[in-house]
């Protein structure tokens, strides 16, 4: 319910405020006085636009740069809602305007009892363009506050001038939107379109399913072929394992030859060692020196002689040493005498007065000459003795040299004898060692021969042969024979292995190719299965969409049918009320569900005719008004009604009666009704719009 409407610079209004209340408020005035502008103002305030006015600038008062409308409303919650909207014309702009809006809500419900300390005018902001709220937020808030949306307003609240009779040919499309019919139609159309797209997509399903079946058959064939190849490979593996076992057996048998080979090698080594020992013994015997044949006493005689000879040599050496000592004494004496003689001769030459250098006594020359002469004689004697001694010494030296040669020769002979004895001993020792080695080799040969015999017996050969060479030959022959047999077996195994390897390589190559093909086919199969699933899902979705489309199609028909029935019922009831009760002129009234066009059966006509073709403007107006007012009853009780010239074309009496009956219908709590006729005899609030020059003013009549 609108409580207050304030206009500022809106159309021809300067600044006007209109207090409104419950019941009918008649807005009267001459043509072009500004009555409809009040409805424009309400529409502008609620929705920021006015039907039929593309430019809001055209709604501004002449020469005004801004306009504004304030609506104070009572919301469905019982609170006071204050809606302020204004538009400003920016400088140098003629059409472009900048809009602002604010919606506030009272803190307390209007009917709440007054409380001390609580300001009843306190309001809080709900939405505002100043807070960057958008028009959609305001529309939503108003829808919640008043229960009015733009479409509902157009369909059920604002009944415009001239639209009352036009409605007989079918209400505006907004009615279908409000009823949900348009939503059902739009949904049905979209469901059908979506279903069609998916059905087109799913039309490939049979072909893809056939392809899938073929691919599945191929895959089964490939899998069977793979199984067969796997079985062949498994069989081949068994055969290859038998080769391995047989090769192991051959290796085992080859290893079994080792003792025989070792015995033969030991026999050969013993034979060779025996031959070598035998040769070495013969060589040692041939090279042995004759035994030295000296008597046992001879070395004693030799020693005695040698000792005597050495004693003589020693004695000769001692004698010679004694003589050499004597000679050294003689030589010393001779030297002393010669020195004395020399000094005395010097003294003699020195003359009288010379003194002895030793005693310091004066020397007598004559005495000195005598002394020199005596000393010279003594010296000559000593020289003779010295010569004799020298001759003796020479003789003794010869004797010593002769004795020395004898001693040396004797030593050499003795050394030769000792060397010969040593050589003989060594030869004897060597011979003994070789004899022992030969004996050992004979034993080893015998043992090796004995070791070989069991192998020969095992091989079925004669084992009673004494000759080791023949034993070795026999054993070698059995070994060679066994080796040959094993070589043959190994060659056969290798050949079979080679064949098996070739077969395996061929089978594995076949399997790899087949496996690759199968893998590829599986990927293709998976893709195809996915495609089939997608297509099946598309088909399933299409089926669901078809059901939904059909349901929306059915829904829109039901909604139309129900709406048409309900509207016809309400319209007939309202029409009867507007006629003033009593018997209706109409036998029947119904609405075409497709167009909501009203069809009536007047009793005087007796057949159904379109209401728009009814004779008489008054009839058509009444029918149109009944239908227009019935919409509010069907789609929802409006918070207020805005009727613009609903009685246009009626005579005075009918007009007054009709206005009174509209007020009595109880369609809503508040009706705003515009008329340019006087309504002084009809109950309600009367507001007169007066135009004075270019200004419109509001006057509330008593």
């Amino acid at each position, binding site marked *: 319910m609108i409580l207050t409407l304030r206009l500022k610079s809106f159309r021809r209004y300067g600044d006007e405020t209109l207090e409104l209340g419950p019941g009918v408020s008649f807005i009267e005035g001459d043509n072009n006085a500004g009555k409809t502008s009040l409805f424009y103002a309400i529409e502008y305030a609620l929705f920021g636009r006015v039907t039929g006015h593309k430019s809001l600038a055209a709604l501004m008062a002449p020469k005004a740069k801004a306009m504004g409308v304030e609506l104070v409303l009572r919301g469905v919650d019982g609170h006071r809602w204050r809606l302020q909207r204004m538009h400003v014309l920016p400088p140098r702009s003629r059409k472009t305007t900048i809009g602002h809006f604010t919606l506030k809500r009272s803190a307390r419900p209007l009917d709440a009892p007054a409380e001390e300390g609580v300001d009843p005018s306190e309001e809080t902001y709900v939405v505002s363009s100043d807070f960057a709220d958008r028009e959609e937020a305001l*529309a*939503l808030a108003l*829808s*919640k506050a008043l*229960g009015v*949306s*733009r*479409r*509902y307003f157009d369909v059920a609240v604002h009944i415009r001038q001239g639209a009352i009779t036009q409605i007989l040919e079918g209400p505006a*499309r907004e009615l279908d*939107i*409000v*009823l*949900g019919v*348009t*939503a*059902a139609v*739009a*949904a049905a*159309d*979209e*469901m059908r379109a*979506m279903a069609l797209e998916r059905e087109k997509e799913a039309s490939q399903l049979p072909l893809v399913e056939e392809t899938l079946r073929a691919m599945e058959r191929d895959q089964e064939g490939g899998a069977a072929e793979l199984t067969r190849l796997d079985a062949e490979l498994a069989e081949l593996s068994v055969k290859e394992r038998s080769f391995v076992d047989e090769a192991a057996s051959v290796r085992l048998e080859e290893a079994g030859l080792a003792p025989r080979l070792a015995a033969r090698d030991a026999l050969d080594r013993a034979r060779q060692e025996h031959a070598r020992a035998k040769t070495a013994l013969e060589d040692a015997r041939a090279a042995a020196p004759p035994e030295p044949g000296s008597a046992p006493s001879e070395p004693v005689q030799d020693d005695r002689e040698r000792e005597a000879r050495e004693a003589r040599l020693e004695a000769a050496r001692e004698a010679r040493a004694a003589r050499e000592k004597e000679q050294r004494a003689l030589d010393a004496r001779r030297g002393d005498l010669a020195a004395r003689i020399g000094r005395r001769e010097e003294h003699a030459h020195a003359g009288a007065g010379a003194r002895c250098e030793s005693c310091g006594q004066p020397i007598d020359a004559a005495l000195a000459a005598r002394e020199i002469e005596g000393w010279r004689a003594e010296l000559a004697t000593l020289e003779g003795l010295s010569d004799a001694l020298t001759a003796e010494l020479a003789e003794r030296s010869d004797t010593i040299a002769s004795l020395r040669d004898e001693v040396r020769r004797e030593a050499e002979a003795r050394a030769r004898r000792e060397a010969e004895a040593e050589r003989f001993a060594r030869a004897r020792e060597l011979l003994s060692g070789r004899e022992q080695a030969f004996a050992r080799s004979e034993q080893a040969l015998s043992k090796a021969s004995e070791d070989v015999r069991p192998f020969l017996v095992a091989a079925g050969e004669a084992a009673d042969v004494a000759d080791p060479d023949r034993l070795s030959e026999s054993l070698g022959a059995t070994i060679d024979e066994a080796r040959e047999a094993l070589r043959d077996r190994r060659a056969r195994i290798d050949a079979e292995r080679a064949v098996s390897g070739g077969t395996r390589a061929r089978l594995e190559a076949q399997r790899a190719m087949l496996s690759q093909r199968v893998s590829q086919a599986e990927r293709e199969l998976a893709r195809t299965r996915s495609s089939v699933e997608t297509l099946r*899902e598309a088909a399933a*979705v299409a089926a*669901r*969409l078809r*059901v*939904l489309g*059909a*349901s*929306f*199609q*059915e*829904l829109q028909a*039901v*909604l139309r049918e*129900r*709406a048409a029935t*309900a509207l016809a019922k309400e319209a007939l009831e309202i029409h009867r009320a507007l006629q003033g009760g009593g018997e209706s002129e109409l036998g029947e009234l119904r609405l075409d569900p497709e167009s909501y066009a009203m069809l009536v059966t007047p009793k005087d006509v007796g057949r159904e005719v379109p209401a728009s073709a009814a004779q008489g403007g008054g009839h058509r107006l009444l029918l149109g008004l009944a239908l227009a007012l019935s919409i*509010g*009853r*069907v*789609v*929802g*009780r409006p918070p207020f009604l805005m009727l613009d010239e609903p009685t246009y074309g009626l005579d005075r009496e009918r007009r007054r009666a009709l206005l009174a009956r509209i007020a009595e219908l109880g369609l809503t709590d508040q009706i705003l009704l515009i008329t340019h006729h006087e309504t002084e005899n009809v109950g309600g609030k009367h507001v007169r719009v007066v135009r004075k020059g270019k200004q419109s003013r509001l006057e509330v009549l008593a």
Partner: protein
Amino acid sequence: MLASAAVASGDDSSKADTTSPEAVLASLESLRARPDLIEPARGIFRFAQYLLDEEENLTRTGNLAGTAREQLRTRTLELLGLDAPSRSDTSDDGAGGER
């Protein structure tokens, strides 16, 4: 709408529920065999109604414009539990908020 009409005429709310389009959907012959589609159908209807309430979503002839149709399709697929590209502008806000 019809539900509101019932309220206006003084009927109780249970009766009102049976006359609203969403209630009517549940009683349709087309959906009798597919009760699982009733809730998606209600959601689709609510969203279509929400789109139609915006004048910008309509063509001059009153049909849904291309973008709105795409939104309706996307919402339909979502309601059917199918993969659909997430779009912030297809939210259900206000889908049933206005009459």
